[in-house]
């Protein structure tokens, strides 16, 4: 089976986020009031071939732990959905 995967990487609480802080500071100047808690992370998307969703998830978790995130400073959230088999 083929799965679409999106890994959302965010900085752990307490880790400096200069991009988020800079965006937040700029908002009032643009007329956006009442926006707070801005955080900037990244989304990494890819496809995975696996037998089923649990095995896809376990592969992606391993990938996150060893490569896509640095667990000392980053958290990750994994979203997996199976790709509809169209004519294949």
């Amino acid at each position, binding site marked *: 089976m083929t799965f679409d995967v999106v890994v959302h990487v965010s900085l752990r609480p307490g880790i*400096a986020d200069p991009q988020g802080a800079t965006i937040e500071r700029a908002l009032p100047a643009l007329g956006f009031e009442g926006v707070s808690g801005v955080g900037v992370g990244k989304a990494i998307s890819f496809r995975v071939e696996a037998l089923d969703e649990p095995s896809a998830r376990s592969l992606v978790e391993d990938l996150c732990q060893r490569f*896509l995130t640095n667990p*000392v400073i980053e958290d990750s959230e994994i979203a997996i959905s199976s790709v509809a088999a169209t004519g294949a």
Partner: protein
Amino acid sequence: MARHVAVVRFPGTNCEFDVVEAVESLGGTADIVFHDRDSLGDADAVVVAGGFAHGDYLRPGAIARFSPVMRAVREFAADGGPVVGICNGFQVLTEAGLLPGALQKNAGLRFRCQMAELRVETTDSSLTRSSTLGAVLRVPINHFEGNYTCSPETLAELRGEDRVVLRYVDNPNGSVDDIAGVCSEERNVVGLMPHPERACHELLGSTDGRELIASFL
């Protein structure tokens, strides 16, 4: 004295020539070793030089750690050989798990390019053997992600085992406990954000980096 140094270069490394120059000015010899090599040759010491390995894509050091040459660096370190990571090289060594902690973005949202004063906190490391405990060295910094962080447990371990090698006198980047450099349990692997290779000649404003480089020659 006068030993041979392997200077590791990844695509995007830019401080390797300064390291070679500094080593040679102190009577040593140096070769640049590209990231796709699986051997360090007959090196007596290894420097992972600064720059932007693999464009700092994903995270500084994240991709570099999977380079073939890093297997050789890991083995060299396991055998007790001196390994020094400077700036981006420090980031590579933390990503590779050869040193604890991580380097996050500077507090204060600024890239820091300035002279820094560093206090020698231990002389029991491959980078500070030629130094004097408590001496203050002037060595430049040049980084955006140099804010050292680690878990409270790791910090307690580093302090308890006397593994904080250098501290900033005036913390420029928010590093926990003013840490500028740390060493491994075996004390042969050292990482630091400041650039000792850029403080090896009067013309550069300081010669204090010479004693650090000389420590592993």
